[in-house]
Every structure is written in C-alpha cells, then in structure tokens.
C-alpha cells in the first residue's frame, strides 16, 4: 500500500464515520421535530434526547476531520473543490450552523421549545442533501476549466437526474440509518412504545433507500461510464451489502435482535461505501484530479500519518469511555440517572 492509498483510506473511513453518526444525529432531530407536529412527542422525545445530548459535538468533529485531512493529504483539492463548491458548501455550513446551535439552544437553554426543535430538525435533514452534492460533482461532467479556473455549471448540475437520485438517497438513508439505530436504543431503554414506532419508521425508509441506491448505479452508467464499469469489478461487495440489507429488514420485521439489525446495517453501508470509494479510485474528481497528482509532499504525508496514529491513541480510549458511559450504561440509557449540569 502506498501513502496515497493510505491517506485516502483514512479519510474515507472518517467520512464513513461521519455519514453514520451524522445520519443517526440528523435523522433523530428530524423524528423529534416530526413527533412534535404529530403529537407523538411524549413517545419519542425522551429516548432521542438521551442519545443525542452528549454526542452532538463529536459528530461535527468527524466532518471537520475529513475536510482538514483532505486539504492536508491532497492540497490540490483546495484549488478544484474550493473554487467550485462555494455555493453548495456554504449552504451546507449554514445548515450545520443552524442545526448545531439551535440543538444546543433547545437542549441546554429552553427544553421543549417547539420553534427550536423545528429549526434543527429541518436544518438537519437538509444537511445530507446539500453535502451529498459534492459526491455528485466528483463524478465529473459538471466542472469545466475556463481560463485556467474551474467553473461549476449549475444548470447542468441541477437538471441532472444523477444529482437528484443522490439527494434522495442521502435523505432516505439518513432516516433509515437513524430509525434502525434508535429502534435498538429505545429497545435497550425498554421503551416499548418508542421501539414500536421507530421500528415502523425504519421499515418505511428501508425500501426507498434501496431503490435510490439502485437508481444511482443506473444513472452512473449514462453519466460516467468509466466509473460504472469500475463498479462492476467490485460486484461482490455490493452483493454482500444487499444481503446484509435483507438481513436487517428480516430482523426488524420479525422484531428480533435489534442490536444485530443495526450491526448488519452498518455492514451494509460499509460495504457499499467502500465499494463505491474503491471503484472511484484513482479519481478525486473526474477527469482532472487523481489521488496521485494531487498528493502532498512525502515529508508532510509522513508527519500527518504520525500525528494521526498518535491522535488515535488518545481518541480511541476516549471514545470507548463515551460509549461505556452513555451507550452501554443501562442506568443512563433507561433514564435512571440524570446528571446533567
């Protein structure tokens, strides 16, 4: 394995981490807001807030890690993506800002404030949609080099079916991942009513997620044949992903083993995500930028990797501590102890 592949694998892993924890987080915010409208707040809010409260800031760090890391390992991305993504990413940032701060305002400031709950629920669900545009653009065909500078063709971008399939996938996957996780969490908290409701949400969003994902592969065939052909080479990964999906749905349907259902869901997304990533190789942006021509100098690469390893030595124990305190601690999950400042 060379440094380029090592670098992109690390970054891809953090992006995967962000997609998973972010999806749980954003979906939870949305379900919370939805339960406020439909009057089911009593059922859902407690379990959702128990999970969300201590971890929201951690979620955000995964994203920061990814974009700081990509500039570090692949500085040329700053030029290509920085210039072209001003508008879509600015929208993403604004949504993230609303989501993060209003979440804190509601949770720590005025508990149960409906307006705030709404605001962060809605902002949250739009974040995956706005950030997923970056993945669409990376497929190429939307950026032209004019006078030496990359320029994004908005008309082409927003009239492309590929864009919209990815947007639909990002939203439905967010709701699906979140619902499956929360089903497990509610079940752990022995909250039968919430478990039932969340399980229903999970089943509702399972099929749309799969259809949207399939649709993307079909769109890709037209839009970027090179990538489409590459995907074929990784077919076993996508088959495993599909089998894991079926496994999750069966467990949910038969109301068994929610922990395993979530594990299989994580596996499903991991296989699909890494399969997609691997088939994208070596391009960061079709057809201008590969991981080789954008890679940083060896001195920087090695120091980044050393820092990364040292950083992990700090982070992994801390993350385990968080999980033991809030995810696997029975008293906390079921709401027996409330030790908030």
């Amino acid at each position, binding site marked *: 394995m060379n440094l380029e592949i090592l670098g992109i694998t690390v970054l891809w892993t953090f992006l995967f981490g962000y997609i998973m924890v972010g999806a749980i987080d954003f979906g939870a915010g949305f379900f919370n807001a939805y339960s406020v409208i439909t009057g089911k707040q009593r059922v859902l809010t407690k379990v959702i807030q128990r999970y969300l409260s201590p971890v929201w800031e951690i979620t955000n760090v995964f994203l920061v890690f990814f974009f700081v890391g990509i500039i*570090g390992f692949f*500085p040329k991305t700053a030029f290509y993506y920085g210039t072209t993504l*001003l508008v879509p990413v600015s929208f993403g940032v604004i949504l993230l800002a609303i989501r993060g701060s209003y979440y804190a305002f509601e949770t720590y400031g005025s508990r149960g404030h409906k307006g705030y709950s709404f605001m962060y629920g809605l902002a949250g669900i739009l974040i995956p949609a706005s950030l997923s545009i970056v993945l669409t653009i990376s497929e190429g065909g939307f950026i032209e080099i004019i006078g030496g500078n990359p320029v994004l063709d908005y008309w082409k971008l927003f009239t492309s079916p590929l864009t919209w399939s990815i947007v639909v996938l990002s939203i439905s996957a967010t709701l699906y991942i979140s619902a499956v996780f929360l089903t497990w969490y509610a079940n752990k908290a022995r909250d039968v009513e919430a478990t039932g409701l969340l399980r229903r949400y999970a089943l509702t969003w399972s099929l749309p997620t799969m259809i949207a994902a399939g649709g993307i592969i079909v769109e890709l065939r037209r839009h970027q044949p090179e990538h489409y052909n590459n995907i074929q080479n990784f077919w076993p990964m996508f088959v495993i992903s599909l089998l894991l999906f079926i496994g999750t749905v069966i467990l949910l349907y038969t109301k068994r083993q929610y922990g395993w259902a979530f594990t299989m869901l994580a596996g499903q997304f991991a296989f699909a995500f890494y399969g997609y990533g691997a088939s994208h190789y070596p391009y960061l942006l079709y057809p201008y930028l590969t991981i080789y021509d954008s890679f940083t100098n060896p001195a920087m690469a090695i120091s980044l990797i050393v820092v990364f390893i040292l950083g992990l030595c700090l*982070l992994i124990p801390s993350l385990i501590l968080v999980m033991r305190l809030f995810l696997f601690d029975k008293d*906390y999950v079921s709401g027996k102890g409330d030790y908030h400042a």
Partner: protein
Amino acid sequence: MGNEEAVFFSRVLTETTLSFHIIYATIGVGVPLMIMIAQWVGIRKNDEHYILLARRWARGFVITVAVGVVTGTAIGLQLSLLWPNFMELAGNVIALPLFMETFAFFFEAIFLGIYLYTWDRFENQKKHLLLLIPVALGAMFSAVFITIVNAFMNAPRGFDIVNGELVNISPLLAMFNPAMPTKVAHVVVTAFMTAAFILAAIAAFRLLRGSDHVYHKKALLLTMKVGFIFSIGAAIIGDFSGKYLAEYQPEKLAAAEWHFETTDKAELILMGVLTKDNEVKYALKIPYGLSILAANNPFAEVKGLDQFPEDEVPPLYIHYLFNLMVFIGMWMAFLSAVFLIGKWKEWNFIASKWFRWLIVLGAPLSLLAIEFGWWFAEVGRQPWILRDLMKVSEAATTSDQVDSMLILFCLLYLVLGVGSVVVLRRMFRHNTVEKELEDRHAMRGRDVR
C-alpha cells in the same frame, strides 16, 4: 464579477466570520479554565458556592461553545472556499497544525460531553473535576494550533522555492516559525484574561441588580484575581511581541507606530491624527518609547516606513487598532489591581455602584480589545496573505457568488448572535442563584429523610 470584486468580498466575508467567531472562540478557550479553578476551589474549601459557580458557568459555556463550534467549522471551510490558492500552497507546508487542531477539538468535544452529563455521578467530586482537564487542554491546544497557522502566515518558514516549486519542506520548522512563540502565548493568555473579565462583569452586574448574595461576591473576587494575573501576563508578552515585530516584521511595527523615518531614539506615538503629508498631530509622544519597545534599548535604531516599497506597507489606520488594544489591556490590568488592593485595604469605593459599572464595562471592552488585536494582526500583514510570498489578491477565489454568500452568512451570524444571547438570558433569569441554592438544599433535605 471581476476578480477585484471577488477579492474584496472574500476579504469582507472572512473578516465578518472571524470577527464573529473570535468572540465565541475566546470564551471557549478561556472559560473552561475558569470553571476548573472554581470547581477546584469549591472542592478544596468544601464551599458549595464555588461548586455552583462552576456548574452555572458550565451551563452557559455549552451555549457559547455550540456557536463557537459551528462558526469554527464555517471558517475552516471558508479558508478553502474563499482562498483556494492560498490553501493549496498552505496545505503543502502548514497542514500539520491544522490537522492537530482537529484532534484537540475532538478530545475537547468528547470530554465536554462526558463532563456535562456526569455531574454528581461520581461519589468523589475530584474524579469529575479530572474530566474537565482534557476539556481545558483541548480548548487551549485548539487555539495554540490555529494560532500557529496564523503565525506561519506572518513568518513563513520550513520550505524553499526553486523554480516555482516547493522543495525541502519541513512541517516542524513551519510550525515553529519565529512568529509562533509570542503570537500563541498572546492569544492564549488574552483568552484567559478576557474570559475572566467577562465572568467578573456578570458577577458585578448581578450585584448591581439588587442581589447581594455572597455567591456573586465570591465570584467577583475570584475572577478579578485571575483576570489581573493574566492581564499582567498579556502585558509582558505584548512587550515581547513588539520585539518580534521589530526583528521580523518591521513594516508592521512601523505602520502601527506611524514611524516614517528610520531613526534611533525613536519615540512612541499614542493616538493623534495624520495630516495629508503624513505629519502626526495631536499625539502623545513618549520619548525613546518605541526604541525600548523594539529593542529594550532607548538608543536603538528602529526601521521606519521609508525602508519599504509603498505597495508593501499596510494601511496606516492600524495605529488606532494597536493603540486601543493596548489601552484596554492596560486599563483592565489597572482596574483589577485597584479592586484587589481595595479588597485588601478595605476601601469602600470598590463596592460602590460606579466602580461596579466600570467592571461591567470591562466585558465589552475586553472583547473589543480582542477584535482590535485580530484586526491589527490581519490588516497589519497586508498586502500579504503569506508574507513576502503570496498577496491576498492572488489567493482569492475566482467565483462570482461571493457577494451573495456574504449576505447569507451575515444573516446567519445575526440569527446565531441574537439566539445565543436570548437563550443565555432566559437560562439564568428564571433560575437565579438564590432559587437554585434553595432547591438544592430542599433536595438534599429530602434525601436525608
């Protein structure tokens, strides 16, 4: 939109974001230390007031930290969105501290979550206090690493340029550039100082508004002590910063001091106005002052603006920014010193209305000093984004939509600024100290029974 407009709007947007973010970032770096001190004093003296102080500060802190985090994410992304050419170059040389900062931030985020949700979960309060150490360290090191990047922009090191190519890159040399020690120390110490004076202002305000509870008096004394110590620290480091500038960025010092001609025995110019022919009027002049600031020697020669090409001299209005920053720093050191001496000598006037109002005024003044300091730091580097290497105008995006993004972000900061103030006020107005202490006693009473 022409390139010039893109550069202009990119500058305005970056300045707006930084000016807004720095308020929350400064509080975010400084307040964890204050919480730590209060909780520690509370445990040691077995005094519930200090413990409650830590607890209430922590609650308010979460709100400011949330805004700090999201605006920090905004500036992190805006660096690439608005200055892609700069980030491409910087990514090659100074990406390391940026990367380290995310780890510091990660560490802080994790332990802040744990700290907030484990009040009273441990039998031993000290264990809970231990959880705060990584929060304070993470917050401080975030500031350290980011300031290192800013220091690099002022004194780029750790690489060579041969035929337009970057070679001999040394990420560590880039980090430990000459601007780094004074800059990092100054940012961290003034964050502690500002946080202390903001919390002091809150205590003084409560005392003015009719609550005579000893809780607020304890808070005021503690914060003024800490504020005084760090304001002295800030002054000493400020002196070193002057020497750094004289050696490595003489044009910045000369512009800040309106020092036009290279001379020895240079005088320090305070305030004043500049005529069309660059004549200084109505200023207070301290003989030998600038020579002492620059070299610790009243007879030392100080380079003037005559040594630099005109298009490489920063705007001369930074003189006011520099002066105002220093004045506020001195004033706060003086004010806190008077307060502490007054406590010791039992002077009555330090408990008077007007004196407490002066302490309240210290909060906005301290934040203004932080703003002046950053504007001075950034405008004083003009026209460079990387000194002697890349001009701001060469670094900006070529995108046409910066102006509309500027409007959107201004709206965002308005929403966040108003939102955070409203929420903070609501949190503490309904839940006064007196009420919370009573509730706690009632609860404890029930437990005993």
